């Protein structure tokens, strides 16, 4: 660096006649300014652009290296070095993490809710029901009874005897249980697979829809079975089973009067003879043990 400062050693004392040569300064300044103006004109005409590009290409690796060093320097500068600052930073990040986790959870809930609402919309467009969505809160821990608790109750219009349906991907909305007990904000649903669950149903056959009685069989190692009232009719595998809604149709003062007609339940999977009785094993369209979100049928449009 020292070599570039002056072309010859400086004198120690200021000369008396030192101010006489300032015209040289002005002359050089004027010359350099003129050269600069000429360079501007040439650059605007595109004459110097290739040379400028070449110089830039040449120094690009060095510029990149310097920029990288700058980034590292800034990163190092931003890194906390004392324990108190680090603890404060950790606390700040933990708070941020908590906030983001809550936000992720909220978005996930919204996504799930969106799925259920879409399902609900599809059901109401396809079936003449007024339904109310409900989240499954609790499943009975004991195997003695197949009951689940939903997050809807009397305050939402839920009554004992109402049908509760669910839906699994690719399948129709189908009955999973009947409201058994109602609290202000919750309700217990007796699953159709429970042995104490008995419903009047119809089997959909080609030219008839015979009545039958369906009973849960979970405690017996199966799911549901159906027995026809009219023993002269032959039950076949593949017959679809729907609710009969007898109590409602007859306007009987029973809880099950709220049960609508023609709610899908399942399909007859196997038929066996017990004496003169035909017993059909039903495979439900919706497994009540698998549902996380259900709908209560509040009413059925006529």
């Amino acid at each position, binding site marked *: *660096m*020292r*070599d*570039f*400062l*002056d*072309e010859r*050693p*400086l*004198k*120690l*004392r*200021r*000369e008396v006649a*030192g*101010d006489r*040569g*300032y015209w*040289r*300064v*002005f002359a*050089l*300044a004027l010359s*350099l*300014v003129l*050269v*600069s*103006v*000429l*360079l*501007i004109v*040439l*650059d*605007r005409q595109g004459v*110097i652009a290739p040379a*400028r590009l070449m*110089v*830039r290409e040449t*120094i690009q690796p*060095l*510029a990149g290296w*310097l*920029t990288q*060093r*700058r980034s590292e*320097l800034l990163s190092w500068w931003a890194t906390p070095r004392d324990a108190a600052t680090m603890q404060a930073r950790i606390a700040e990040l933990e708070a941020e993490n908590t906030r983001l986790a809550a936000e992720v959870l909220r978005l996930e809930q919204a996504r799930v809710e969106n799925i259920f609402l879409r399902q609900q919309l599809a059901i109401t467009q396809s079936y003449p029901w007024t339904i109310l969505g409900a989240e499954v809160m609790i499943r009975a821990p004991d195997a003695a009874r197949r009951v689940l608790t939903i997050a809807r109750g009397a305050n939402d219009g839920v009554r004992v005897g109402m049908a509760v349906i669910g839906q699994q991907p690719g399948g129709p909305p189908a009955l999973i249980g009947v409201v058994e007990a109602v609290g202000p904000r919750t309700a217990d649903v007796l699953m159709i697979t429970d042995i104490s669950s008995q419903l009047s149903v119809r089997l959909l056959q080609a030219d008839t829809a015979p009545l039958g009685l369906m009973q849960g069989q979970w405690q017996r190692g199966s799911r549901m079975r159906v027995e026809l009232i009219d023993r002269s009719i032959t039950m076949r595998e593949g017959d679809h089973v729907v609710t009969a809604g007898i109590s409602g149709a007859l306007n009987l003062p029973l809880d099950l009067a709220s049960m609508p007609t023609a709610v899908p339940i399942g399909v007859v999977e196997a038929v066996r003879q017990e004496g003169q009785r035909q017993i059909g094993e039903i495979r439900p369209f919706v497994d009540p043990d698998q549902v996380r979100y259900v709908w209560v049928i509040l009413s059925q449009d006529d």
Partner: protein
Amino acid sequence: MGNSQPRRLEERLARELGLLLILLVIALIQVTLLTGPTGFSVPILLVLAIARALVGSSTAEPVRGLIRSLWWAFYGGLALDVLGSLPIGSHAIAQLLAVIVVGLATRRFAVERPIVPLLAVAFGTLIYEAVLWLIVLPPISDWQTYGLIVMLPSLLLALIPTLPVVAIVHRLVRNTEYQ
């Protein structure tokens, strides 16, 4: 004796080329390491040229000192022009005018007093930015906005390295002087 003049010329050319390269490296540092998040960079080359003019004009041969500072300003300006987006020659003109005005105006003041370099750099930065404003006049026609948004931050940034740079240049020039 016969070939001493050509060798002298070669040495001088090598020295000028070396100075140009050093200033190009400093320009690179200015536009990479010394840039802030807001886009401003510390105008280290301008400060160097002004410091060279201050120190040079306070020596026994002020004319030669000022001439050297003009070359520093010119080379430094060209280095910035190569790396910048304005036409080549823009920064060179701006630095030349800043250095010539400040160098002549402060030649009677003692550079050892801190206020002198600070005022000189502040004044020089205003001239430098004003010249650049004139060159880029069509896009930024509001000089008040330009002064507030560009000139003032540049001026403050230029003042940061002023005293250390003047001290370093002063020391280098004096060391050369006593050799």
